[in-house]
Structures are given as C-alpha cells and as structure tokens.
C-alpha cells in the first residue's frame, strides 16, 4: 500500500514543532488570516460541510451539519468546547496532536469559533495530560501575543478567547453534555436530550462540542482545501443516499500486542491487517493475533478473520461492532484469555459509569460482578445468557439510557461472548466443574446487619 505523507502529524519529529514559529513556517495561520479577511462565518460552515468531515471523537457525526443546528440569529454568547478529555482505552492521538502540534488544533479552533460565531472556546483537557496542558497553554499565549486571539482578531471584528479547563479523571466528561455539566461545576451527569447542546448547552447557551482531531482537520481543510480532503478516504456509496462517506486522513492509534505501538496517519479505510503489518511491525513476539479492538474499547471486537474490514465509519458496523469510534486499534494475541479481556472491559465501565440512570449504573456493576464470579471459578453457563441480555438491553440505542456509555459497555460484552462463545463456555466448564450447569434461581438472601 502507498505510504501516506502525514498531514495531521506533520510536526511530529520536528524539533520545536509545537512553536508558533514552526507552525507558521509550515503554512499555519495563513488560512486563518485569509478567511478572516475575505470570508464570512457561513462560508466556513459551508466549507466544512462540503468537505464531508465527520467528527473524530467517536460518534462520527457530520461536523458542518452539527454547526448548522445552532440557532440562526441568537444574540449570544455562543460557546465552543473542545473535547480534549480523551479517555477511551487505547486512544492517544489527541495527546500527540496537543503535545506536538498544538497550534494546528488552535487554528482549527479559531476557524470553528469564527464559523459558529462563538465568542469563547473552552478546551476541556483531561487531568492526566500535563504535558499537553503546558504545550497548549504555551501555544495559546503565543497566539494571543501574535494577535490570533483576543479582541478584534487581525482587525476582522471577530473576537475569541480560549481557556484551558482541567478535568479530574472521569471518563464520562468526554460525553458532550457530561463535559458541559463538568465545566459548569457540577457532577458530570450527562443531560437528557432534547434540548441538544446546539440549542441549550453550556450555561444554557448554544454550544458546539468538537474533538481535538476534528479541529486539526478543520485547520488542514482551510489550508489544503475541500477537494484535497475529499480525495482521501472512502467516498460515499452511490447506492446509498444516506451514506456521508468517510473522507480525510485519520489518526489510527495502534497498541497492544504489536511490535511498534504508535499513532499512525492514513486515509480513512485502512484495515486492521494493514495497520498491523504496514505500520505496526506485525504481531509481537512472532505470535498470531486472536482479536482486535477496532476503535477504542467501546466499539467491541474484531476476530482475526475480520481484520480486513475497512476502518472507516461504515466498516466495523458490518461485522457487528458499534462503529469506528476513535479508530484506536488494540491487538490481542493468541495467548489472551477473552475472559480476562471482558473482565478488564467490565471493570472499566463499572468504574466510569456516572450512575445516573438505572440500566447503566446497575448493568455495568452487575456485569462486572458476573465476570468476577466467572473468573473466580464459580461461573455458570446461564451467566452468559444473562450477560448477553445485559449487553442487548442497556444503551442509547434501545433507548434505555441517557447516554452512550452504556452502549460502549454493552458492545464488548456482546462481541466477546458472541464471537468467542466457545472459549467462555470452555472456561466456565473447566473452572467450575461442579457448578457450570446450575440453572436454579438464587436462594433467599441473608441480611447481615440491621440498624
């Protein structure tokens, strides 16, 4: 396959690539100056819509379309929130973008704020990225000093402030309304929708929440053009009018059992096999792969046989995964026990569930306890039916929960048990020889303390 010359990652490896000087030397901020001088906000919206850019944070919603949901003549203020809470296991591309090329993201942010008429942009940055904090703050300071932020930027009449806001290690702050609640100073319980953030978001004002990589793409679209962006990736299916295509370059994170874990840039549509072989140096230690997470743990699992599925917005869904997610691929080799994998996943989601709605709060906790019992050698075959039921019923898709964390918790359960059923059954039979077949209801409970 052709090697794609990095665009989003062009600063990686360049000494002081994160500085304003370096960014400008590579063509940065010129698009911003041009657009501020010659274009209107709606022009930028149209540009991003035309590019086919879909959000890189996990949901894959058309970015330009999302921007059009803002009310047309709102007196303001309108807020732009950059979701830098990147916490999806396996994902680290935002970190690299922020550490190595913060100005790219900032230029994208300023352009997006101009398009959406936002007057303030908050970058909600996860606590665990201290170097990103330092780099971003440095870049923001440079941008103010150069007149790219603040009042009346470059005489355009457009004013913008960008503020860093630090998180405190909660995954759910990556959910857009969880982020908003956290920014407002409350517990990060996602909001019920409607109203949607574009109508009533941060501080009850119209708000757009965009991902870091999406902002980087906006900067590159402004620099290199819509046609360039659309020349990369997977075009929309001509037979399916509802398919928006998967355009542009994508940062793929590769980790787990490969020789060269890392963040690699390639057109959307790369496959897991290509990622491992071409970029990742192959499965480590000369072993074979057994499975792979396609896009962050929430998306579920590919079996090795499914490794040729294109990693674009449509591909993973065809093999029963939740979607492309963050395109973070984690490879599991043949020695990995799927029971251990699923236990790790359930533990993650039980820890991160915000606890607001019943099916997720109790479902994530219950599935963890089931996995712990199975791991401890007390599992029953009927536990697998129960796990599948939990997996099939909790989530935004059936409508039983407020946000998509539950779907993310459910998909690994469904995929792991459906695609590796015999392994689970063997494990249960082997570790619980006397009890794996039990189907009796649980006897009455004992209360151990009264008050």
């Amino acid at each position: 396959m052709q090697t794609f010359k990095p665009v989003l990652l062009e600063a990686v490896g360049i000494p002081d690539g994160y500085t304003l000087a370096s960014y400008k030397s590579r063509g940065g901020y010129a698009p911003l100056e041009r657009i501020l001088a010659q274009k209107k906000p709606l022009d930028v919206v149209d540009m991003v819509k035309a590019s086919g850019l879909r959000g890189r944070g996990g949901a894959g919603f058309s970015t330009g379309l999302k921007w059009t949901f803002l009310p047309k003549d709102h007196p303001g203020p309108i807020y732009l929130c950059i979701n830098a809470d990147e916490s999806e296991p396996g994902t680290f591309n935002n970190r690299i973008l922020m550490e190595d090329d913060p100005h790219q993201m900032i230029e994208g942010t300023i352009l997006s704020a101009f398009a959406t008429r936002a007057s303030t942009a908050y970058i909600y940055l996860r606590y665990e990225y201290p170097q990103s904090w330092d780099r971003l703050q440095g870049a923001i300071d440079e941008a103010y000093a150069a007149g790219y932020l603040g009042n009346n930027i470059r005489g355009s009449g457009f004013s913008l402030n960008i503020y860093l806001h630090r998180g405190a290690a909660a995954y759910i702050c990556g959910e857009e309304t969880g982020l908003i609640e956290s920014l407002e100073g409350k517990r990060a319980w996602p909001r019920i929708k409607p109203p949607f953030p574009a109508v009533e978001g941060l501080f009850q004002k119209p708000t757009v929440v965009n991902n870091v990589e999406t902002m980087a793409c906006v900067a590159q679209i402004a620099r290199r053009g819509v046609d360039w962006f659309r020349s990369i990736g997977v075009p929309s299916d001509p037979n399916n009018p509802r398919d928006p295509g998967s355009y542009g370059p994508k940062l793929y994170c590769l980790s787990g059992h490969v020789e060269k874990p890392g963040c690699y840039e390639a057109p959307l549509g790369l496959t897991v096999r290509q990622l491992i072989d071409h970029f990742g140096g192959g499965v480590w230690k000369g072993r074979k792969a057994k499975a792979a997470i396609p896009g962050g743990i929430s998306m579920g699992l590919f079996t090795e046989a499914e490794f040729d599925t294109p990693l674009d917005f449509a591909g993973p869904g065809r093999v029963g995964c939740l979607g492309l997610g963050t395109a973070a691929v984690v490879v599991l080799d043949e020695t990995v026990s799927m029971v251990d994998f699923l236990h790790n996943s359930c533990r993650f989601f039980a820890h991160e569930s915000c606890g607001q709605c019943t099916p997720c709060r109790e479902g994530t906790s219950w599935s963890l306890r089931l996995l712990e019992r199975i791991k401890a050698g007390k599992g029953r075959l009927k536990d697998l039916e129960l796990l599948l039921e939990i997996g099939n019923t909790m989530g935004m898709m059936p409508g039983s929960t407020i946000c998509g964390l539950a779907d993310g918790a459910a998909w690994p359960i469904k995929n792991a048990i459906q695609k590796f059923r015999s392994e689970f059954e063997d494990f249960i039979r082997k570790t619980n020889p006397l009890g794996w077949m039990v189907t009796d209801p649980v006897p009455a409970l004992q209360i151990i303390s009264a008050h």
Partner: protein
Amino acid sequence: MIASNRNPNRILTDPMLEKIEALAPRYPNRRALTLPALHIVNDVLRHVPLEAVAEVAAVLGLAPADVQDTLSFYGFFHQEQPAGRVRAWVCRSISCALRGGEEVLETICHAAGIQPGGTTADGSITIESAECLGACDFAPCMLANKDLHKNLTPETAVAFLQSVRGRPE
C-alpha cells in the same frame, strides 16, 4: 471577592484565593469555578479537606453540599489526608493490561508495602490505578506527578519507587 475573614485557621490562603479570582472573568457564573478552585487547593495541599470545601463554597456563593457533590464524583481528590508527595497512577486499562500493567502495579505496591490507592507511611508516594492514561504507545505506563513513565517493567517500576524514597523532602 476575597474573603475578608482573617480567620487564622482558614485553609484557603491568599495566593489560592487570588488564583481563583483571577479565573473568575473566564466564566459567566461562579459555580463554574468549582473544579478549578478544587484543583488550586489540591495542587498545594495534595488533598481537599472538608473545611476547604466549605471555604470554597463560601467564596463561590454555593452550598457546601454542592461543592462536595462535585468533588466526590471524580474520585480524584483525597480528602482525609494528603496524598503522597509523589502521586503515581499506574494504568490498568486494556492496552497496558495486555503488556503487563497489572504485574507492574502489583509489584510496585508490594514493594511500597501498600494496597493500590494507599499512601506510604512516610508520605512519599501514593500509588493508585488509573484508567487509560492515553499513552498506550508506551504501555505499560505510569503517570507520577507530571512525569510519564513509559514501557515499565516490574523492575523499572521498583527502581522508580526507590528513587522516590531516596528523594529529599
């Protein structure tokens, strides 16, 4: 609105209050200062005791329960006593677990003589498990204060622990 109450037992120092007020123009209301204020206190004290929560609430014009509600959601802020001078987070999410993260955690905790989440008696280090630190390219990894420790092995983890212990206070 710097608290004019010169209570000598006050926990929020003037520099802390100044830092909080400096952020106030960024937000349209004071409730949004909650998390930044908690970080400002935590950065200095390595914990946010209940008294500090009450003071933050008073400064921001909120009920103490509202601030505590937010604080306790994150499971991040120690309250009863300060975290160690080094706060070490060992990642236990899938990418690190696949490359030995659990062994690293167990080894370093055992060497430190504490359970995950605990702090050594000399106050030098707290070791906690973290969920995906976003450094899967360097799994298994650990964030110790602001330093990311990459590609850990049980041996390098213990060596790090010893270096922490040897540090002057």
